């Protein structure tokens, strides 16, 4: 795990996942924030989580490729 802290792809992915979780959590547990037909926090949180988790997964996949 310490090695992963050297990996910028992992760090940025972790950051986006964390804030994506906060935003998505606000959608799930916070007050209703419907704008038009889109829940903004659902949309934004999903995007952040998707990109963040993809980057984390890619960083582990890169490690497997190298080893």
């Amino acid at each position, binding site marked *: 795990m310490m090695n992963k802290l050297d990996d910028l792809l992992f760090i940025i992915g972790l950051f986006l996942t*964390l804030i994506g979780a906060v935003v998505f959590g606000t959608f799930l547990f916070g007050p209703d924030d419907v704008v038009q037909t889109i829940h903004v926090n659902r949309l934004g949180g999903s995007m*952040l989580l998707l990109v963040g988790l993809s980057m984390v997964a890619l960083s582990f996949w890169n490690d497997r490729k190298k080893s």
Partner: protein
Amino acid sequence: MHLTGIDYLIILIYFIFVLGIGFLVKAKMKNSSDFLQSGRSLPLWITALAFISANLGAQEVIGMAASGAKYGIMTSHFYWLGAIPAMVFLGIFMMPFYYGSRARSVPEYLVLRFDEKTRTFNALGFAAMTLFSSGVSLYALAILFQTLLGWPFDVSILLAAGIVMAYTFLGGLTSAVYNEVLQFFLIVLGIAPIVYIGLEQVGGWAGLVQSLPPVMTSTWQYMGHESSNPMGVNLWQMALGLGFVLSFGYWCTDFLVVQRAMIAKNMSAAQRTPLVAAFPKMLLPFIVIFPGLIALALHKMGGDFQLPLKGDGRIDYDLTLPMLLGHYYPTGMLGVGLTALIASFMSGMAGNVTAFNAVWTYDLYQAHIKKDGTDEHYLMVGKVTTVVGIILSIATAYLARSFNNIMDLLQLIFGFINAPLFATFMLGMFWKRTTSAGAFWGLFMGTLGATITHGLTVAEGKGGWLGNVHEFASGMGHAFFIAIMAFSICFVVTLAISLFTKPKADADLKGLVYSLTEKRVENVSWWERPYALAAVVLVITTYLNYLYW
């Protein structure tokens, strides 16, 4: 705009990560090259994203949305005409010299190619420009958050400057670059939802075309005369001023962006940095300009979103993006959107300070004050310069608060320095006959010519302090004309003086001039070759220009 605990939590997470990156990178800072040049070891994806992020400060993000609302899709010229071609030129033709010469900075290339006085002239101008720019970034951040959130001016300045100082002192250029990459993702993911929701609300591009005047949804059709478009420029001013002089002058010679390519791990990565960066760059108008178009369309539709007004009743375009954030984003995404703005202000500041650091340490301190210091000494100088650079940026931010026209001054310095410099580089890199005397006097006269042109011409009440020979329809047209004059004067003077002075011997110019440098042939897949990447980039960019004709 009211932030809740959730929004502040997101901002806090960002600050923790930013400082954390500084601490993580600190262990790698073993010598001055690590601190000031990232050891020239960064992979392509990092250098490419940092390359565009270095030019994606909050003033650009906020400014492009403002321009989108004011000028429409014509604003995309700053990308599809005013950036992509120059980035391609840099990657294909200039990076082999920047990287191959082992120059540690753009001014250092000038001393290798020409002489010390040419390097020093450029280094002084660049150092002043980066400090001003850093201070103005800080000032703009503090003003924006004072206006939107009621944060005290001093608190914003000291908090932002303190965090930037911490992570750049710890991790040098690597820290700044890593945070620029983080900033890129924050900006794209922080603003993209607004574009999605806004387009849905206005009816997509077709809805924008229907609700806005035709001139706002066309890039080229209304360029026949200055009076036929809101930008107040004609085709020649746009093509020559922005598309050639300013664009190539900035993207090919400004050390702040070129530095991000110069720190790549090898020549191949260095050459491909601006080419790979061109792909996200050409899509950025959809993220940064479209919010402006959407805001204008919503304003015209007369719904619950209206563009903010200044005290005199005119639209305050600069608040377009913040107002959209406040209108569409609830707590949660509001924190993300504001964190994206904070990140871009702070990265803009860090980028300028680290570029200033390299130029000061190598091109001014080492060149003139202490030529034979140890590497430990220059590492120490680099760290001290980080602190001094931030302090000077804070001072400039307070100066900007006292003098409103400091931002105009910054724009002028920018045009005066970059426009003639490109003429110097073009002749220096591609004509071995260019002499040191020609280069120095060309640069000097080009800068002087820009100053005099500004003094003799007027636009929007600015300039004309020597007289009024011509009045331009817009500040933009004025700036483009000054850039063309600066470039032309520098080019002609450099050429003329070179013909009558002695050039360096061919042996001294190997690796510095196109005709005297061996062309490398790489053993890579066709899609990794710079020319192939460049061709794809230019085809897509041409298509985008056609699509939004």
